[in-house]
């Protein structure tokens, strides 16, 4: 099934993705200059000697022009070097790789929860539009989508950890103890998934209703195919496409955007790593961390994009044959 046109399609997607990554790195490096105050002074304190400041600037590369910095960044990247922590000289790469599993676990569990709860809610809402469940889901969704996850986090912490003492307050659990880690994952997952459950339920519901009004569904109804089969098979597959695209974006966003949840629940993930680095003006760590987040974001979108083409036979045919879009 792999053909030249498929490779061209893949190559163009990859090129776009790389361009996005490169653009974000330049922005990232430029940002360091726009933040008020000389980074070296902030890092070393106001009584630092000019020699020390110059040495630090040379070490982070702030003494060079922006473009040169960017090239240097990418040059080091090829040897797997993301730079060093300003304070203790530890490689940023190992810091990021150490924090990544905690963030990934949180993002994956939040997304899975959102899918596991959101898809059935969407199916029920679309089966009986305007019904009790549909209206309840619509009401709660709007509530959860519009409530920021850090607000939900704080409330969950207060109710379930502080008052009821059902769940641990802080941390990611003992390393090596899977049960404890999962236990620590429950509340942050709930905080992050709440909005996404509603979002998936509403988004999928509306695409389901749209598909259900199409004539091929009427054909199936005219032959007495059961409503359950129509909904779960013939309507769900075409309706799931827009949701897959959003899931790709959402997952990428959770990988980087779990900052609040990680800070509030004090989980040592990418979000809290970057948060701490920003507070201490630890620029190499900020740059390395954000770079990895950008990379993951682009990657998840790429995967979502490709899996959409794999679900839709028309899109698949278009890619394989190289013909234009089929109408």
């Amino acid at each position, binding site marked *: 099934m792999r053909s030249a046109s498929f490779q061209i399609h893949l190559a163009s997607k990859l090129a776009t993705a790389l361009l996005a990554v490169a653009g974000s790195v330049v922005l990232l490096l430029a940002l360091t200059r726009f933040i008020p105050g000389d980074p070296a002074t902030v890092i070393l304190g106001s009584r630092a000697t000019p020699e020390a400041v110059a040495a630090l600037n040379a070490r982070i590369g702030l003494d060079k022009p922006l473009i040169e910095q960017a090239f240097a960044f990418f040059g080091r990247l090829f040897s797997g070097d993301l730079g060093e922590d300003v304070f203790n000289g530890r490689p940023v790469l190992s810091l990021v790789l150490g924090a990544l599993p905690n963030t990934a676990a949180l993002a994956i569990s939040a997304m899975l929860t959102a899918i596991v709860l959101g898809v059935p809610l969407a199916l029920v809402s679309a089966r009986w539009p305007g019904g009790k469940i549909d209206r309840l889901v619509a009401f709660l969704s709007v509530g959860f989508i519009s409530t920021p996850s850090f607000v939900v986090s704080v409330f969950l912490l207060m109710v379930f950890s502080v008052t009821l003492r059902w769940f641990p307050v802080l941390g990611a659990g003992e390393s090596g103890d899977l049960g404890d880690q999962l236990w620590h994952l429950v509340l942050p997952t709930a905080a992050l998934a709440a909005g996404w459950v509603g979002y998936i339920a509403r988004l999928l519901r509306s695409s389901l209703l749209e598909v259900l009004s199409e*004539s091929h569904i009427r054909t199936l109804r005219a032959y007495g195919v059961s409503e359950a089969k129509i909904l779960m098979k013939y309507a769900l597959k075409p309706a799931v496409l827009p949701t897959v695209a959003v899931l790709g974006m959402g997952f990428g966003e959770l990988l980087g955007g779990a900052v609040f949840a990680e800070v509030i629940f004090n989980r040592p993930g990418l979000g809290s790593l970057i948060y701490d680095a920003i507070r201490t003006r630890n620029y190499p760590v900020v740059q390395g961390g954000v770079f990895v987040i950008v990379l993951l974001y682009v990657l998840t979108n790429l995967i979502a994009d490709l899996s959409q083409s794999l679900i839709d036979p028309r899109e698949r045919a278009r890619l394989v044959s190289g013909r234009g879009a089929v109408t």
Partner: protein
Amino acid sequence: MTAALLTIENLNVSYRGRGHSAHILDGVDLEIGHGQSVGLVGESGSGKSTVAFALLGLLADNAEVSADHAAFDGRTQDFAKRETASLRGTDIAMIFQDPMTALNPMFSIGTQLVDIQRRRFPKESRKALWARAQAVLADVGVQDAAARMHRYPHEFSGGMRQRVVIAMALLVEPKLLIADEPTTALDATIEAQVVEVLHRLRQRTSASMLVVSHSMGLIAELCDSVVVMYAGTVVESGKVADVLHRPRHPYTRALLACEIDPFAAFDPSQDLATIPGTVPDPSRRPQGCIFAGRCPARHDRCSEKPPQQQAGDGRTYACWLEAA
């Protein structure tokens, strides 16, 4: 003569909207005998497709359906409760208008042809249903049916898709086959092929047929009798030959005049025949004869509702004109 397969008396359909209601069908009578083929003809908005959809209980939820009496194959059916929905895919099958949208783009033809047989043959294995589908697909003229079963709708041409849609209807071996504008969405050359398939089908199956179309030509080709509809009412019905050659109702005559004769010399100076005016708004139906506003033979009595006149041979028409 045995009882007809389908009898409907005084079928009414209206849509209730906010503060107003639109009357789509007003007192439609329809009778289809066993093995008989009936055409339902009329211009757009005449309600002919609504009759077909009402038969299967496929109308939107806000449609109000009622009939004085309705029976299918000896059993009384309550249209108001949409009892006929239970006949879907077992006793009644429908061939849909637009083959480009009637099939699901995400599933193979084979999968769809198997699933539509489920209700008719609940105990058969998937393999057996697949084999049946493949055989019928070959039968309606799809070449290389075994491989085509695994293909998706976008890989079929319009004419081939229409054959797939016809195969669906054949697969459930219905007692009544409804064809809703089976050739309207096709271009002329493919139309001829599909008519050919329908024609063969007509000769082979014992099923009754209801052909819904705006084309008198198609009806003449496929049907024994015809029901002419205008604005939700039946204006004339009878044997195809009688109605076509000696139309009684002015609307039937006007409709026949609009048919394009493919063998006539093309004369660009001559305008194509049309019926002046438009179908009345279903929410503001006139009191008397529904066609009076556009009728060339209208006179004073037309402000009253015309009676159903009998003209022998089961021919009826609703018009004040005594003799044609």
